[in-house]
């Protein structure tokens, strides 16, 4: 372990130790030895995880491995703390099940989880995402073409985007029916404006010089659009896509709270809470988190492939 790593780690660990000591002491005074021991175990795991990670971070070695291992250790630490807390403090499983119970339920409910995944993610979120993003792209080009629209539509769009989706979802379910179409509609509404705003901004992100260059070639509007402005807008478009990817899943799930066929992740979550099958609820949340992160990751990868030329993608070279 290098001195540098020690220095960089010191403030965090010091903070953890201080907090730990305080809470253990408080536990001892107010709730007895058992609780204090659990608290102690919690902090032991937390500090242990942090130390392991600092050691990993300070080690010379392959960056790609570290970028994978360190968040993993961090996540495992969180899970271990969760397990210890739930079991140690005796939290009722109908309030918060431990990760181990969730894992068991997950492995036993794969068919249900898969059916729900298809209904919500593939049918609802994905289709809405595609429709919403394409629509936003096309609108952005139109809006960009007519400055009048840009000045008129964007402020109104900002206002509309501020409408909370919990309010919009029931309305759209009423309009588009119970099946995935209404979920897709909610997703379309949610992803449209982030996408539009980013794309419009991106289409403006060319330098005067680049545009002048096209003019010296006597290039027309569409040529300039396809050869210059769309490629230049890609980093912004991907920024929008990334935001949209997290929104899409949330939108599809939330919309199912307001009416659905008897399948889907949101459906399962909302009904299972009613039946206190909290382990299933969390299994669905795990699916959502994995699907969401994977979706995000896939777009990030695609971004890397498409905007490889952008300085932000070219790594931290000099």
């Amino acid at each position: 372990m290098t001195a540098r790593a020690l220095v960089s780690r010191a403030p965090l660990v010091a903070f953890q130790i201080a907090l730990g000591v305080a809470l253990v002491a408080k536990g001892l005074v107010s709730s007895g030895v058992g609780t204090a021991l659990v608290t102690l175990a919690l902090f032991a795991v937390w500090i242990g995880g942090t130390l392991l990670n600092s050691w990993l971070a300070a080690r010379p070695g392959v960056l790609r491995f570290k970028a994978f291992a360190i968040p993993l250790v961090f996540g495992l630490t969180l899970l271990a703390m969760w397990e210890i807390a739930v079991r140690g403090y005796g939290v009722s499983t109908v309030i918060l099940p431990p990760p181990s119970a969730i894992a068991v339920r997950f492995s036993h409910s794969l068919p249900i989880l898969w059916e729900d995944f298809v209904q919500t993610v593939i049918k609802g979120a994905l289709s809405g995402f595609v429709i919403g993003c394409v629509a936003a792209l096309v609108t952005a080009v139109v809006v960009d073409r007519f400055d009048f629209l840009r000045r008129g539509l964007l402020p109104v769009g900002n206002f509309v985007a501020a409408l909370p989706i919990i309010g919009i979802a029931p309305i759209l379910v009423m309009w588009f029916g119970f099946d995935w179409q209404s979920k897709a509609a909610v997703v379309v509404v949610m992803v449209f404006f982030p996408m539009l705003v980013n794309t419009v901004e991106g289409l403006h992100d060319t330098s005067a010089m680049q545009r002048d260059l096209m003019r010296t070639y006597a290039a027309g509007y569409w040529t300039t659009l396809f050869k210059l402005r769309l490629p230049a807008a890609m980093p912004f478009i991907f920024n929008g896509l990334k935001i949209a990817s997290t929104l899409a899943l949330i939108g599809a799930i939330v919309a199912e709270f307001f009416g659905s066929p008897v399948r889907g992740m949101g459906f399962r979550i909302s009904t299972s809470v009613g039946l206190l099958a909290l382990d299933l609820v969390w299994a669905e949340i795990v699916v959502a988190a994995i699907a969401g992160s994977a979706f995000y990751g896939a777009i990030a990868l695609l971004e890397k492939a498409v905007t490889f030329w952008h300085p932000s993608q070219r790594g931290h070279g000099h």
Partner: protein
Amino acid sequence: MMDGTPKPAAASTVISASALNLTFETNDGPVHALRDVNLEVGKGDFVSFIGPSGCGKTTFLRVMADLEQPTSGTVLVNGVTPEEARKARAYGYVFQAAGLYPWRTIGGNIRLPLEIMGYDKRVQAERVKEVLALVDLAGFEKKYPWQLSGGMQQRASIARALAFEADILLMDEPFGALDEIVRDHLNEQLLALWARTQKTICFVTHSIPEAVYLSTKIVVMSPRPGRITDVIESTLPRERPLDIRDTPEFLEIAHRVREGLRAGHAYD
């Protein structure tokens, strides 16, 4: 005109500006970027524009390229208006920064104007090869701009302007961002290229030695309002080795340019 040397006989006129004025309306009031500018550029000339910052060099070049509209006066490029000339793709324009598109390879960047102008795919490939060789970049076709040094990028951007066969080359401080040694080298190459292709070149620079070394004609400008204060016909031969810059003749012209500049310059 203050130069004593005779004008080269009857070079056919490629660019002519007469009584040109251009005023920008800004928030702080009008800015007189060009005032009563008159100039003739003959075929095959290499004209340098030099002058302090803000004297209107770029503006003048942009007017020729139909990127800016004069407030009054007329400009003719190849005998027609700048707009017609632009639409006829009569000139290539090289900007101060290389301005290559980072998402295209060097080859792709040079191909860009050819694609836009609807050249045949095969012809495109040939041209790219040709101009890359011309600027000494053969073999770099597949690289991306950011994989090249500044000097190489600038050469690629010149290649891009050469790719479609425009007779006129407008260059706005193309070497401004480069170090002196690379710059010397590119100057030599540019001269060679000019000699080979017989193009007419308008070249903006801040560097006195560069202007003197390259040009057949040096236009000295002065700001507030932007105007031409001196036009110096070079007495140097067309054939110019690098060390011509140590000759008294060169220094004499350089001195004259510096005096002209000094006269019109405000220090900040």
